[in-house]
């Protein structure tokens, strides 16, 4: 098949927003979700067969827990990417948010809730800055957020004095991620949190005005502006909204490690972005879905966990992950050509 057509069909298909679509469109896209989900299932089945240790309740909840941080980051970034942007600052930014949470709770001894909200707001503020740099000062998203990545990394070290901040003074904090509000069922709260976050993100994406403009700006920024939409304002909003997720990820991370670790974060952004793209969101903007991102994140963590359970040597794990990602995305492509 020809370059053009492929390029077209690729660029045409897979609008993840569940808002009004043609019947065929709706069928197609739900089919895609289903099939993307299928390749996740395939992985799960494979690992279950490969190792009896994989399909245990505690390992599954382990996988979900491992998905939480990257997953929450990916949720926010989905908005940024669909709007045609990118955010490289989420990795170290998340760390800065953990550190600030530590500052609020341990240094300033503020109440738990304040610390949590403070951490989330820190993320939102970073998003606000990113958005302003990009929308108002017209700095390309890649470079603006790359700079923010470095700044956040530095600030996290400076503020924490390059040593971890512990939450001894707020014992409740650790339960935030690791406790379990549902009695009986041993699902850690972090899993609940990402689930709620995903629902929130999904609804925002498909049912609210901010989601609509996310798609519109990503699809054709100039045309959106010509239609009288205040693109500048909405872009800033989108980055701020996404930033709040970075903040949440930072809080969950800190709670899980019951400490803010200033040294972490670098590299998490690529994992999160990978999850988003494996989930079928296009870096060209205008196309994507939250459910896709969730599936993408799960594929990533199932893969890592499974390979570890099989105790594949580390160096081969990278090779395997790379290969599987290629395969998954390639099948996805084939499928879209079919369904388109």
């Amino acid at each position, binding site marked *: *098949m*020809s*370059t*053009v*057509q492929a390029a077209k069909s690729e*660029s*045409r298909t897979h*609008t993840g927003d569940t*808002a*009004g*679509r*043609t019947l065929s*469109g709706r069928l197609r896209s739900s089919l895609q979700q289903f099939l993307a989900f299928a390749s996740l299932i395939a992985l799960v089945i494979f690992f279950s067969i490969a190792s009896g240790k994989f399909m245990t309740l505690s390992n599954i909840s382990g996988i979900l827990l491992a998905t939480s941080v990257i997953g929450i980051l990916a949720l926010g970034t989905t908005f940024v990417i669909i709007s045609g942007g990118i955010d490289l600052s989420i990795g170290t930014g998340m760390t800065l948010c953990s550190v600030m949470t530590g500052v609020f709770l341990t240094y300033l001894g503020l109440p738990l809730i304040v610390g949590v909200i403070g951490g989330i707001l820190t993320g939102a503020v970073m998003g606000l800055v990113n958005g302003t740099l990009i929308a108002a000062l017209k700095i390309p998203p890649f470079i603006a957020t790359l700079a923010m990545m470095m700044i956040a990394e530095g600030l996290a070290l400076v503020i924490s004095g390059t040593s971890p901040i512990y939450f001894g003074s707020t014992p409740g904090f650790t339960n935030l991620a690791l406790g379990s509000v549902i009695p009986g069922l041993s699902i850690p709260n972090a899993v609940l949190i990402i689930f709620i976050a995903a629902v929130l993100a999904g609804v925002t994406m498909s*049912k*609210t*005005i*901010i*989601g*609509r403009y996310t*798609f*519109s700006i*990503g*699809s*054709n920024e*100039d*045309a*959106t*502006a*010509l*239609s*009288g*939409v*205040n693109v500048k304002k909405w872009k800033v909003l989108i980055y701020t909204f996404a930033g709040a997720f970075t903040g949440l990820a930072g809080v969950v991370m800190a709670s899980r490690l019951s400490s803010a670790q200033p040294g972490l974060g670098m590299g998490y952004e690529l994992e999160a972005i990978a999850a988003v793209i494996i989930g079928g969101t296009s870096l060209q903007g*205008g*196309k994507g879905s939250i459910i896709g991102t969730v599936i993408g994140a799960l594929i990533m963590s199932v893969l890592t966990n499974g390979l570890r359970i099989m105790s594949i040597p580390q160096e081969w794990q990278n090779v395997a992950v790379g290969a599987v990602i290629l395969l998954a995305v390639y099948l996805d492509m084939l499928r879209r050509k079919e369904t388109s």
Partner: protein
Amino acid sequence: MDNLLLNVHNVSKSFPGVKALADVGLDVRHNEVLALVGENGAGKSTLMKLLSGIHAPDSGSFELDGRPIQVQSPKQAQELGISIIHQEFNLMPDLTVAQNIYIGREPRSGNFLLNDRRLNARAAELFARIRIDLDPKSKVGDLTVAKQQMVEIAKALSHDSKVLIMDEPTAALNEAEVAALHEIIRNFKSESTGVIYISHRMDEINEIADRVTVLRDGGYVDTVDAGSTPIRDVISMMVGRRLSTEQRPDPAPAGTDVVLAADGVSTRDMLSGVSFELRAGEILGFAGLMGAGRTEVARAIVGADRITAGSIEVHGRQQKIPNPAAAASLGIGYLSEDRKHLGLLLDRNVKENIALSSLGRFSGGGFMKGKAMAAKAQELVGTLRIKTPSVNQPARNLSGGNQQKVVIAKWLLKDCDILIFDEPTRGIDVGAKEEIYTLLNELASQGKSIIMISSELPEVLRLSHRIVVMCEGRVAGSLSNDEADQENIMEMATRFGADDVVPAGAEPAGGTQ
């Protein structure tokens, strides 16, 4: 005059290297359609961009209902009641039709929640009111150029505005759709509203316009009464000379040997069993309603779309054409109907756009012969009279028609035996059209074969030796030039009771006389 709706006083605007407008003025009365005509690059779109707040004028002033106004932004233009259909689409391909039309004005429940049911209902009402056949829920990116144009029109009409500006709204439409659009416009204009209507299709002028304002080279020429002024006078005002537009030329008789033969060609989306033959030195016209599948035929032949059934013979030998590159190497070139997305490199300069298909010819051992390339481009800019400060101007900065000429130049340079022109004269002014017609005839007489897809029946009738009429992705029939006329073509084009045909009562418009 007291009953002026819109008044423009000596507006000037220049761009780097170009004076687009010099002291231009015009006025629109209530309840009138003012046609704005001029050659490609005369400054029409620029003037409209000033009115709609995209560019700011260097000097001059506007009055709306007698009150002086300043238009700083598109949003403000809307608020003032000025809505515009731009010459180039401004649509979000990934959004649905309804979402596109009401972007920025979405019906909401509460502050943030969207109400898409109301959105689609509102769109449906709109379509019913203005009698346009569109599905509010279909994704704009999947629509044909023609349907996308309809979305733009619907969008402009959805703001109930005072001044409605249409910059070549019919360039992508065929006769029936044009008639429908005129109906829409007549319903729109009222004691409180008026329309500025830009078109290169002269036949439309006396169809729809009350008065005609003529621009030439960024300057104001004159405003005349549409009814009482013969078209040819308007044209000579535009081009500054008289044009002899003969009704039907007698093109050199086509050869007999078949250079391209399609046999039962089908594609997954659209075509079923399309067969036809193209002879050496022949101009084969393709007519049909929007969405009939003419573009698809072209795309299928050059390998841009996969063929699911049927075969293609080139010079008597059956060929598998996987992609346009392969087609090109067989001497088949395709000029797309969608110059912005499938024709031009907007950010690259005129020279590079013209040379794009022929780069091999301008390179030795991998190195570009920049001078030769520039020279050849310069030459074609001359022949086609492309209005540009230099061959190094980014294509984006050319006027619509001149952009179209650049795409044509690209294929003239490539020098293919078989040329498929999809809406080649879209957005091109009358004078230039005549030149391109002559050019096509020359190519044919040199023995080249041309498939000419056009939504302008008069054009098809003028140029084609034979005419293939398509309907619903099938060939409805083919006519020789002398047996063909608008009526029997329209009859064939609707043979299979196409459901997306625009309402009857829209009688096809007359040819150029």
